[in-house]
């Protein structure tokens, strides 16, 4: 469990990536279980600018298609193209090999305003959040 990782009520996670200023985004373990087996991921183009809460990617399972929203505003600087050919990685390793994209976040100080692990778990217990 990463202490720097933060979450959204729409079940994305975000944490600082290795390259300076970039943050990695994926979906939570809860989300991958809810979505069930991922069969297709539509990733954003590198360079795409997104606002906080804007749709960035689409994940499809046999159940339905789900929109993935940007936890913070910024620009897409990298995408995990491995999940395009192996979408099951999102289920197998949602916080690791199943990451979706990296954002160069406009204002990195906003990260700590998002729910941390404890707050996100509380949200799940209260039945809150949603896609």
């Amino acid at each position, binding site marked *: 469990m990463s202490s720097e990782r933060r979450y959204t009520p729409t079940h994305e996670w975000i944490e600082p990536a290795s390259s300076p200023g970039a943050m990695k985004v994926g979906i939570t373990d809860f989300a991958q279980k*809810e979505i069930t*087996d991922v069969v297709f991921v539509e990733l954003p183009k590198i360079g795409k600018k997104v606002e906080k809460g804007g749709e960035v990617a689409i994940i*499809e399972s*046999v159940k*339905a298609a*789900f*929109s993935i929203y940007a936890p913070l505003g910024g620009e897409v600087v990298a995408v995990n193209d491995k999940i395009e050919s192996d979408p099951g990685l999102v289920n197998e390793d949602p916080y690791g090999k199943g990451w979706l994209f990296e954002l160069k976040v406009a204002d990195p100080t906003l990260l700590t305003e998002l729910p941390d692990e404890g707050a996100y778990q509380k949200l799940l217990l209260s039945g809150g959040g*949603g896609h």
Partner: protein
Amino acid sequence: MSKAMTENGNAGEGIKRPPMEPTLWEKSRPGARGVLPPGVDPDTVTGRIPKELLRGAPPPLPELSELEVVRHFTRLSHLSRGVDTHFYPLGSCTMKYNPKVMDRIPEIPGFRDLHPRTDEEGMQGLLEALSLCEESLGALLGMEAVTLAPAAGAHGELAGILIARQYFDAKGDRERTEILIPDSAHGTNPASAAMGGFTVRVVASGSDGGVDLSALEKALSPRTAMVMMTVPNTLGLFEKNISTMVEKVHQSGALLYMDGANFNAFMGVLRPGDLGFDIVHINTHKTLATPHGGGGPGSGPVGVRKTLEPFLPSPRIRKEGGRFRLESPATSIGPLRSFLGSTLVLLRALGYMKMLGGEGLRQVAVHALLNANYLRALLDGVLPRTGEGLCAHEFVLSARDLASRGLHASDLAKEILDAGYYAPTISFPLIVPEALMIEPTETESKETLDKFARDFRTIVEKAMNAPDSVKKAPRLTPVARPDEVGAARDPVLTDPGSL
């Protein structure tokens, strides 16, 4: 057909699974043929075709007699489930029974044999019929102008969105780039809005399943071009605050779009125009006795207010004196589809409207509402349901409590197949976990609904008491549980037998 997908023979519990019908490739016998055209010498035919365009070898097609082909497709039709053989409560899709007499309409030679390039003078009858269809739909929708051009419901949405874009363009208002859509909407709504060049903003539902009024107010801005609402919504609920919502949307200067896919629930009872909507589309196959997908082309007529009429797709049918002519106004969004739309489908819709008349059409909606509420009441307490009070033409149950037995809504659906029904819609709408969406439609009898309710209750009891048995369903279909994930991740799109 891979081995993983079929479980030939024993389906467990002493039940023998019906065999799968082999494919035509598997049944092929070299040299067999269906027809022998008389007096045709193949050489005289191929002799007229340039050599470089001829095949080196005959195409690899299956070879069978006519009778073998007839039996193949008849057997397949017996393995399939349709509304002609089974109760089909597939929510959102409105799988009601279409009167067989409607099949006669596209067979009327004057319409059937009309060439699409016939001049206006030669198709006055068709133009009159289509004009009457526009008028009848306009009367039912409370809209001043109707286009019949869109080829399906989602195409109707796209038409409505392009009309809205043209409208704001004509006003010189380029700031309105967003379309607001509730999270319970049909998935086609955001797709159409994006195709029309708009940014989609999703509006959350309140805990009662309706649009959250304060969330809508917050989302409205000078950037909002349009709000798309489904009435009744996909939970089968009428929005309680609809008049306030209409007011708020219009105050913000945006247009209000109604996804009228659920026309069956309000036809002759309420008119979108009277509610204050600016644009509405309907899907003829869900309400007006035209075929569902695969049974023929679709049609998604769109009705608009007078102020939006100049932007409707071209050509428009104009009546002058007793004659009809086609016109393409410069203000139009342009043609959306070849010729005049799915004309034979539209004639069926016209026939259905004229056959039932105003009161008859109202009775369709009233009985759709009655049947849904009756079935919902019968199923009270079986599974948790969404929404208080009455429902509209369909209702949503949640199988989330079955998680404790390791079961999902899809497991119930499989068991429902064994009980002799088509399964309800599952996993939609997305805002309800483990959703089962049930829509009986007006064409089912009380006896059918009573029996379905009894069987459904038994199935849920079985799921609670013997979940392992439910996991083995269905037993009475030749294919039990296809590998949906494998099929989506690694699709095999050609029959291996054909290669």
